[in-house]
């Protein structure tokens, strides 16, 4: 039985006695959907006001995965926040690591070595692949197509295998460190990665064959969940949703960070701003990510072995051989471990293009080893409210693909 809560501005129209032409559904129905619904991959509750099958109004209730990310960050060292960022968007953990670390490095004024920049870029793009594959695959599943979901998940497994080679973990990577990355590449990585890319391309082709022209899929997506350019700007919507509406906004091009200014890739842009455009944008972005990964591999091989971590003593531990034999390095190691790095006082905001849009971190330091504030600007949270606008007057069934392609990730939305 639906729980009745008043929704703002929604009164059922009273029926006049002589109005025989009217539909029988005179009373609006309130429907609770979620917080744990099999057709939404995300923990969120919709309180839907229905007129028959049409959505009159919608209240989106989030917060079910709130676990105090910012509060936790304010009680540990700057390093100890990195594993928490893994758990923000668990589909693309490396990108979340990267956003946080780049903001902290902005305060510290650290420029990591060139090889590290290319490794970070490649890790981030692998992560983005995983996110887009989950989005497109799970959307198919929730529209009752099992096979393409399995193609998507198989491809995501391949990206996870590569991430595992990169940092030892499949999902919660904890790969990016302040001033560097955890490891350099394993010597067999380039070959394995090229094999993986070939397999992913084959799977994407299969996916494309089954889905892109599929009548059922296209009918459910085309013309649903439409958002205009102007609405995107007013609601601060970024990422594939803004690009599907025709805004060529991608921070990798607009404000190039890492080595994106040296890479050759395109930004796909849609026209209509509906779910089908979002799907096409995501698929094309996956092909672009594969291109970027290939360029990174070639560059890393050309650069040859080299340091992947900064030598800045504020954030790096000294070499173990020196720690065991010299007093100064022993003290430095002790201080680094027990206190953690001290970050200069000040505030900085750094935004990266994550798979869902602008992922920004606003960090404030008072010069000690514990952050005053670590604010995550979560694209999932900010892209979600316009969904109410997208779905007003639409069919209840349109909610599923619209929510799928907004790709709200509970961990990031609720923090």
């Amino acid at each position: 039985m639906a729980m009745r809560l008043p929704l703002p501005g929604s009164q059922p129209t009273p029926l006049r006695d002589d109005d025989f032409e009217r539909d029988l559904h005179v009373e609006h129905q309130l429907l609770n959907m979620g917080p744990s619904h099999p057709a939404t991959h995300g923990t969120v509750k919709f309180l839907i006001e229905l007129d028959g099958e049409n959505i009159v109004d919608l209240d989106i209730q989030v917060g079910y995965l709130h676990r105090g990310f910012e509060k936790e960050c304010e009680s540990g060292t700057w390093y100890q926040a990195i594993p928490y960022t893994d758990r923000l968007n668990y589909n693309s953990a490396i990108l979340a690591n990267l956003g946080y670390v780049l903001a902290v490095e902005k305060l510290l004024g650290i420029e990591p070595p060139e090889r590290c920049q290319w490794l970070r870029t490649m890790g981030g793009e692998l992560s983005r692949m995983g996110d887009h594959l989950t989005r497109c695959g799970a959307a198919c599943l929730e529209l009752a197509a099992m096979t393409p979901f399995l193609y998507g998940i198989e491809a995501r497994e391949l990206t996870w295998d590569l991430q595992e080679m990169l940092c030892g973990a499949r999902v919660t990577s904890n790969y990016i460190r302040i001033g560097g990355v955890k490891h350099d590449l394993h010597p067999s990585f380039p070959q394995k990665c090229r094999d993986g890319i070939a397999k992913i391309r084959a799977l994407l082709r299969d996916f494309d064959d089954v889905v892109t022209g599929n009548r059922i899929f296209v009918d459910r997506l085309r013309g649903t969940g439409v958002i205009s350019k102007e609405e995107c700007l007013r609601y601060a919507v970024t990422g594939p949703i803004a690009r599907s509406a025709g805004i060529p906004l991608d921070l990798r091009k607009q404000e190039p960070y890492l080595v994106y200014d040296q890479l050759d890739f395109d930004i796909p842009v849609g026209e209509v701003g509906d779910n089908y455009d979002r799907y096409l944008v995501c698929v094309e972005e996956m092909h672009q990510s594969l291109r970027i990964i290939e360029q990174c591999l070639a560059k890393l091989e050309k650069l040859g072995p080299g340091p992947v971590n900064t030598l800045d003593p504020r954030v790096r531990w000294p070499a173990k051989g020196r720690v065991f034999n010299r007093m100064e390095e022993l003290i430095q190691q002790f201080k680094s471990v027990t206190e953690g790095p001290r970050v200069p006082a000040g505030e900085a905001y750094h935004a990266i293009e994550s798979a869902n849009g602008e992922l920004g971190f606003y960090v404030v330091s008072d010069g000690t080893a514990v952050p005053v504030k670590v604010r995550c600007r979560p694209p999932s949270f900010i892209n979600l409210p316009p969904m109410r606008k997208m779905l007003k007057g639409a069919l209840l069934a349109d909610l599923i693909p619209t929510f799928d392609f907004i790709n709200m990730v509970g961990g990031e939305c609720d923090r």
Partner: protein
Amino acid sequence: MENFGSPALRRLLEFFPSQVEATHANFGDATARVAPGSLLEIMRLLRDEPGLDFEMLTDVTAVDYLGEEPRFELVYHLYSVKRNHRVRIKSRVSEQAPEIASLVSLWPSADWMEREVWDLYGIRFRGHPDLRRILLYEEFEGHPLRKDYPKEKRQPLVGPRN
């Protein structure tokens, strides 16, 4: 006060010389701290002034400087897609009257972000159409991101109201 070459800061100092309290551009982020009473007009100028065109209110958050007066600092990040530039606007409100004008009338994106700041910091937004808690539940007592809210404090979850 200096404008550090930022067109947004230059305009602000031109139009609101007495309401801008401080500016800086540390780490390359153009920042202005403004009087809370004139936040709405300042934001309207930043949005509508040709040449600035801040169409996007990217982020709204707050920082609790416990022990300082005024205690809370609201932090707004604006971004212009057209001009590809950013500015950060800050404004301080006191512990006794933690209230500031809502920006929902200028940018609907402020809606959820202001609800989050109300939820976690207990700062009220004048003119917000629907200022409910968003991440926590209605029955939650206190505002957990305030520095004087103990991290270890637990509150039992209560069932839904009827």
